[in-house]
């Protein structure tokens, strides 16, 4: 306590700013002398072997000079003088006391060096100072917590604690009065007391030199303001004229150290100022602990999250790949389609057309997207209302499937078939998606077909007319044959008969033979005419279609043929036959002709073998009659079914050559076919097919 008050006293000796300028010029002049002395003394000191004992005063003015808790002398001035002593080979001896005692002891020469002495002209009369100040001290205003003081004017009306009787008290009072501020000065016995007073609410702020203040203000919970004043240089002092070599050595060291930023001087200085900076409250550690814990938890959470994210990312990546694949697939399907796939909005027109549109119409999908109503404008004027109506209906849920014409980029018309896949409502809009197929080729083909059909129909009509008239002529011809051609024949027969019956006895044998020949020829001619008329009848008579039991038909025909067999032996092999749809009488005629032929042409074969059977085809039933008769040469097979065509002479086998022509005509009229296979003397097989039909 005494030390602090002594310091205040010593500081109180400090000169005005004006005297400071004077000291500076003094320092400049003295520095050359000091340096010379220092060098001279330095060499002198090394020359002297016995260590020099230097007595240094110690009092309490932390952090500059003080006794630490272990009882050792400490502080900025002490640490520095110990370094210098180590270099100079001095033995330091500390003399403990208070400021006043130590100052008196210095004057009397009981102490060689007194630390932390501010230079004043008064002191200069009594003591010697070295030239380079150890530190310069200045004062700060430290404010109580909650007080915001950034400018001197903000001190107005405040209570400020000041060390009683200190130089700061005087300077501070003068300063605030100079600014015209109303400040209440509260006296304190020590700087610590001043800080405690401020911390406890006894004052709003405290004044202290920065070395003390910066060292302690956080401990008291105060804040440092930017208000600074009263700068004072501090030195070691010695009794006048006693120890000039000590002062020179001190200056020499200080000057050297101050040149180097990393020197001992700065290390010591920072060790006393850094201390308070390093002071960290407990709550900071707690906070740090909590933060650390939170960080650890966060790290764990982070790991878990990262795994989740990784897994999710993996899924998403796979989903993306799947999506791209799927998208690619659909894109290929859509863009590669030979049809145009589109979507159209009721409100915004055409939204999308697949790539194919360019090949069909010559407009790119991008162009159509840019002009959404262009498509509609290209539609043929005659078709447009129908398209509008259909689209409207589609948006109301009806299926859309229309055909219309559209003009391409070259001005050519295309026929399109437009089918909607579906319509969805999006907000108050409707989006219809569909497929458009270019059916121009089909339409042209259809038109051609229609034209051809019309032509064909006309031709058929013409041909039918021709056929009808031909048929009429044929009917007329048949009629005329039946009446006119038969009449003379009849007359020949009639008169031959009359001649035979009336004059037979009067005629020679030869004449009778002639008459027989005439009668036979006439009979033959009559048979030809009858067959021809029958043939013409089969061509013209209307078919009376119905179910025909072929088994019965064949059985009846065979029964009627038995009379003609004249005791010949015939082996019949008749398979079971299916029913067909046809004209019963005509089909009996077919069987009659074929079986009659078989019987006729197997004459001389013992035994004669005649087989009747079928072979079914997809649409037809094929019937056949097979015999082991004389057969024929296949090269004449084409003549077989012609009218009056015969492969044998009448002398060999009687007949008119109309039977097979009749068969073919009847089978033709039933929609079937006729053909034959044979070999001379190895028999023949006659086939005819009848289409499978349902009985109506």
């Amino acid at each position, binding site marked *: 306590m005494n030390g602090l008050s002594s310091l205040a006293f010593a500081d109180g000796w400090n000169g005005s700013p004006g005297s400071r300028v004077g000291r500076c010029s003094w320092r400049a002049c003295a520095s050359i002398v000091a340096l010379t002395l220092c060098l001279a003394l330095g060499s002198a000191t090394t020359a002297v072997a016995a260590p020099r004992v230097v007595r240094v005063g110690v009092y309490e003015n932390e952090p500059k000079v003080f006794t630490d808790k272990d009882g050792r002398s400490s502080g900025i001035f002490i640490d520095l003088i110990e370094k210098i002593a180590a270099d100079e080979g001095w033995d330091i001896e500390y003399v403990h006391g208070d400021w006043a005692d130590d100052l008196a002891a210095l004057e009397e020469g009981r102490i060689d060096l007194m630390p932390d002495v501010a230079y004043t002209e008064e002191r200069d009369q009594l003591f010697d100072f070295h030239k380079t100040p150890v530190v310069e001290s200045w004062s700060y205003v430290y404010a109580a917590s909650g007080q915001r003081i950034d400018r001197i004017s903000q001190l107005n009306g405040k209570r400020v604690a000041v060390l009683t009787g200190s130089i700061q008290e005087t300077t501070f009072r003068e300063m605030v009065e100079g600014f015209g501020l109303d400040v209440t000065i509260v006296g304190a016995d020590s700087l610590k007391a001043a800080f405690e007073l401020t911390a406890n609410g006894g004052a709003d702020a405290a004044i202290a030199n920065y070395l003390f203040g910066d060292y302690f203000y956080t401990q008291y919970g105060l804040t440092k303001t930017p208000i600074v004043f009263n700068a004072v240089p501090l030195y070691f002092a010695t009794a006048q004229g006693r120890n000039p070599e000590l002062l020179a050595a001190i200056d020499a060291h200080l000057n050297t150290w101050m040149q180097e930023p990393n020197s001992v001087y700065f290390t010591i200085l920072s060790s006393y100022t850094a201390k308070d900076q390093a002071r960290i409250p407990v709550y900071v550690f707690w906070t740090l602990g909590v933060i650390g814990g939170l960080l650890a938890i966060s790290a764990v959470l982070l790991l878990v999250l990262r795994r989740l994210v990784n897994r999710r990312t993996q899924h998403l990546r796979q989903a993306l790949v799947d999506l791209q694949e799927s998208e690619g697939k659909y894109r290929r399907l859509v863009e590669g389609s030979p049809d145009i796939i589109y979507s159209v909005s009721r409100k915004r027109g055409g939204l999308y057309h697949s790539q194919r549109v360019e090949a069909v119409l010559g407009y790119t999908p991008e162009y159509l997207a840019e002009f959404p109503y262009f498509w509609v404008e290209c539609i043929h004027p005659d078709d447009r209302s129908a398209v509008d109506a259909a689209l409207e209906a589609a948006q109301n849920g009806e299926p859309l499937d229309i055909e219309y014409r559209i003009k391409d980029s070259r001005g050519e018309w295309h026929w399109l078939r437009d089918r909607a896949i579906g319509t969805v409502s999006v907000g108050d809009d409707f989006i219809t998606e569909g497929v458009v197929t270019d059916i121009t080729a089909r339409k042209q083909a259809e038109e051609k077909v229609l034209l051809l059909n019309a032509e064909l129909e006309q031709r058929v009509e013409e041909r039918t007319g021709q056929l009808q008239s031909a048929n009429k002529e044929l009917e007329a011809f048949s009629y005329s044959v039946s*009446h006119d051609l038969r*009449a003379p024949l*009849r*007359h020949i*027969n009639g*008169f031959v008969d009359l001649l035979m019956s009336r004059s037979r006895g009067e005629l020679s044998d030869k004449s009778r033979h002639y008459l027989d020949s005439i009668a036979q020829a006439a009979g033959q001619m009559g048979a030809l005419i009858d067959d021809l008329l029958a043939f013409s009848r089969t061509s013209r*008579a209307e078919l009376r279609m119905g179910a025909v039991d072929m088994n019965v038909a064949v059985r009846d025909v065979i029964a009627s043929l038995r009379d003609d067999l004249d005791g010949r032996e015939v082996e019949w092999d008749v398979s079971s036959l299916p029913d067909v749809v046809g004209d019963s009488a005509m089909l009996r005629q077919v069987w009659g002709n074929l079986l009659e032929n078989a019987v006729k042409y197997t004459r001389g074969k013992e035994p004669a073998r005649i087989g009747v059977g079928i072979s079914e085809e997809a649409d037809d039933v094929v019937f056949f009659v097979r015999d082991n008769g004389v057969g024929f040469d296949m090269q004449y097979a084409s003549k077989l079914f012609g009218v009056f065509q015969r492969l044998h002479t009448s002398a060999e086998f009687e007949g008119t050559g109309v039977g097979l022509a009749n068969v073919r005509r009847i089978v033709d009229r039933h929609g079937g076919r006729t053909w034959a296979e044979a070999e001379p003397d190895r028999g023949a097989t006659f086939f005819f097919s009848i289409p499978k039909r349902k009985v109506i």
Partner: protein
Amino acid sequence: MLELKTILLAEDNEMDVELTLEALADHNLANSVIVVSDGVEAMEYLRREGAYADRPSGNPAVMLLDIKMPRMDGLEVLREVRADPELQMLPVVVLTSSREEQDLLTAYALGVNAYVVKPVAFADFIDAVTKLGVFWGIINEQPPRGVSRDD
């Protein structure tokens, strides 16, 4: 009773007429045959008009009617006969040169009583007139053996 025995033969072909008359003569029926050469003449005879305006009244026992004749064919004659109340009961036998379907169908539709294929095959003719029930009306004498057996 003479009228009952009369046979009206409507036939334009002279050879057919000759052969028919020969055949009827063989059976002693030729005396009672009136021959007309077309449909118009046949109707004049039946209605006692024109050349036949003065003939005694009464219908023939049967009319042998050829179909194909000049001016008015047999089917038209048949139609007129069947439409005439005086004549509609007259037995008519159509002479055909063939079994031409359409002619026969038309003839039956018009109410023909029988048909005989030319030249008149007498078995067929006798069979036809017998069935018509005019046989005894036109024959004076005993019928031929083959026929009498049927009766």
